[in-house]
């Protein structure tokens, strides 16, 4: 449902008197959001530039230039950005379902780990034809991730424990479980460092063009599916009703506990596929860094997209561009970790931009009221 549709107010300003931008014939209010975003980006790079200048004495413009030139303007860089965005988009797609239904699933990293464990366990051991094995891997990972986040859902519906806390904590449990698996039950014989054996060849998805894997297409297909689920199905409708109008949903006879649990199951299940994608599309085995922190990055991406499903992949591409560009920063003498600083700054500025947006809208609405 388009819950955030911005319309004029019924009892305050007259919609026809709202200042309009003549050329585009849209209400000025519609511009508040992009304007706020532009401010956020400018602010991020301004502050980032000052930090570069102060800490390294480098020219910020050159630094940013090399930063983005590699990520977005070199053929290999672009492929790398797309490849890196794959698990982020999948995890983000899972996470955004929870956010759109008023729940905080911060456990994508752990759910990815569960997905990775299950995919590896099946992919290494079950010698089945690809047509059976691959769907089985994806299905089992989905169920595993769903049950994993279902624990948080259960704790919430049964005991009222906040899901933000439990999903976050469960990340660490899952990551430790992954480490145990690669050094124990799923370890390859005589490894140099903890890792699993390679999954069977028929479980490995092909590359479109190295390093970009077929899993990227899966990620892209997932986004409209999630959008449809939330906006166009009666299930998505009810899930959102519970999330944003708890009491109204209860009075309408909806089963709050059941629907809350469903959100957590679907959300965790999809996030887990991010881990699967890493195993069958990139690593072809399980290692300690197979989840790569993408589950945490996905939180930033969902926030950056303001929980808009369609905007989420673009946010993911941008963030993964910043991650990829980090390596080129070292060429101009800036530590690669600087891109993490920039991502953090960006998130803060986007939150700040939310305030600017509300303030702008409030001001314009007040003005319109005076005109009436």
């Amino acid at each position: 449902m388009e819950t955030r549709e911005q319309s004029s107010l019924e009892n305050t300003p007259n919609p026809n008197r709202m200042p309009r931008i003549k050329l585009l014939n849209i209400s000025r209010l519609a511009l508040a959001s992009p304007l706020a975003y532009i401010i956020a980006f400018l602010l991020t790079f301004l502050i980032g530039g000052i930090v570069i200048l102060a800490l390294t004495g480098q020219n910020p413009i050159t630094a940013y230039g090399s930063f983005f030139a590699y990520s977005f303007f070199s053929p290999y860089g672009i492929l790398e950005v797309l490849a890196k965005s794959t698990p982020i988009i999948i995890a983000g797609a899972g996470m955004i379902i929870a956010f759109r239904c008023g729940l905080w699933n911060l456990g994508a990293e752990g759910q990815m780990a569960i997905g990775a464990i299950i995919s590896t366990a099946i992919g290494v051991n079950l010698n089945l034809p690809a047509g059976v094995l691959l769907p089985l891997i994806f299905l089992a990972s989905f169920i595993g991730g769903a049950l994993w986040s279902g624990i948080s859902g259960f704790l919430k519906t049964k005991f009222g424990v906040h899901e933000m806390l439990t999903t976050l904590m469960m990340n660490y449990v899952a990551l430790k479980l992954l480490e145990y698996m690669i050094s124990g039950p799923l370890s390859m014989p005589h490894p140099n460092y903890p890792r699993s054996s390679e999954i069977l060849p028929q479980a490995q998805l092909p590359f479109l063009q190295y390093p970009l894997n077929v899993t990227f297409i899966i990620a892209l297909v997932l986004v409209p599916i999630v959008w449809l689920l939330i906006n166009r199905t009666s299930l998505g409708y009810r899930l959102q009703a519970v999330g944003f109008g708890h009491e109204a949903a209860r009075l309408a006879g909806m089963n709050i506990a059941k629907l809350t649990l469903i959100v957590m199951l679907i959300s965790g299940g999809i996030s887990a596929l991010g881990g699967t994608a890493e195993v069958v599309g990139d690593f072809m085995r399980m290692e300690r860094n197979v989840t790569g922190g993408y589950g945490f990055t996905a939180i930033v991406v969902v926030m950056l997209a303001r929980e808009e499903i369609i905007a989420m992949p673009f946010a993911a591409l941008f963030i993964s561009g910043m991650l990829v560009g980090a390596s080129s920063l070292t060429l101009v003498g800036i530590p690669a970790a600087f891109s993490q600083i920039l991502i953090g700054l960006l998130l803060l500025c986007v939150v700040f931009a939310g305030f600017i947006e509300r303030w702008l809208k409030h001001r314009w609405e007040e003005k319109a009221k005076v005109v009436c």
Partner: protein
Amino acid sequence: MKQMEETRTPEIVLEVQGISKRFGQVQALDCVSLAFRKGEIHTLLGENGAGKTTLMNIIYGLYQKDAGEIFIDGQKQEIRSPYDSLKWGIGMVPQFFKLIPDLSILENIYLFMQNTKFFIDRKQAKAAIQKLSQMFCFGLEGKIDTEVGALTEGEKQKVEILKILARGSKILLFDEATNVLAPNELDSFLQVIKDLNQNGYTILYITHRLQEALQISDRISVFRKGKLVGSVPGKEATLNQLTMMMVGSELAKTSTVQNKVKGKPILEVKNLCVTDERGLQALKNISCQFYEGEIVGLAGIEGNGSNYLAEALIGLRRVKNGKIYYRGAEITRSLPLDRMKQGMSLMPSSNALVPLFNVRDNSILDYPERLPFSRHGMLNRKAITAHAKRIVQEYQVQTPSILLQASKLSGGNRQRLALGRKIEANPKFMIAYHPTKGLDIKSQSFIYEKLLQMKDNGATVLFMGTDLDELLLVSNRLMVIYRGQIVATFDELQGVSKFDIGVLMTGGNLCEGGSNSGN
């Protein structure tokens, strides 16, 4: 209002003059003037929404008045926040406690005291609190380091009282203080009020319960619909007189609705018992029967169980004992959604809409999975849009667009949208729980009209409310609920007076005209 003139005596500690307050379209307080004498128990009596709590909140500084003046000890003062009122010695025991459950009694009280020292002087604070507790026989001396979360509601209330006493308040405001108490805690609480009073504290006591008011008050001021009806000395007041002041003119104004021949029975309730969140009995042996084509009024003041009855009938609350039959079949344990599919419906006083959903999406909240609004789990936007447009037009929901967020609708339009949505499902039995609460007259009469239309089409409406004018206006029959029990049923409304019903609603007894029929 006569007291007003003679108020300029030194013993007046607090006086309000010409206080008005408006919330949206509702005039909550209309030019109220009242004086409170030192050392009296002054009860503010009135139904829910009569304005007494609003006045209290203005005196305490939680709300800002639109007009009027406040005098404390004869001096005009501006009260902008509770900080000011506490400074002038006014403290409030709120209806819903503001305590921190993880802190001890001592810590909760200490937080509220005026502390100028940097380090906490536990010993001194403890001694002071224990002394206060002993003085009024609170029995909290031994528990002073207990976490507040482990206390009973009655004990929590005593902590709230200690808070304001420790802060040095001399004028104590009590807002519906007995709502949270179990019946057995009531007497000791009223004794506490009397003890406080004897120690020189001035007490402003808000309640809608007549019995309590009569038991403890030196003076009683009655509010109705934002206006002060009058003040009477507590000793001279009678139940009848107060009831009359609370519900309005004594003239019998009965239903204009003609009783037709009873239709077929549709819903039957047998010995229904329901407990509340704390396990206390909320409904006691409710038995009643409803017929097709009638509107049955249920008169009851909030806190007497009508909300539990509404939720139990629609299946949102577990029934402890007893049975409910709908069209001959037992539904005591069936799910709310199943009951709604069978034609039952609940029209609430608020929270009928998801505030962040737009008007269109809110128009199917009760039946998103039904045809034609969804097919094979996919929503049908066209059907929903048409449905929403029809409701907006037919139920006169004023909105610039069906894409407007529901939170931006006014109260009246929200209820119209909700009612339209409910009626479009073609219910056979509707529970209307305070459906006109807080609405302007136009929206109110629109809702009556629609409910009467439903009745004429053969449906049944159980109309729960407090306002006797509206109950008598729409009902064919009327029941009265008091403390979880149906205390009276009027099958014939001709010749029934508002006054009689008012007495019953507040725990009076018609034959004896004043003694308590409750438990």
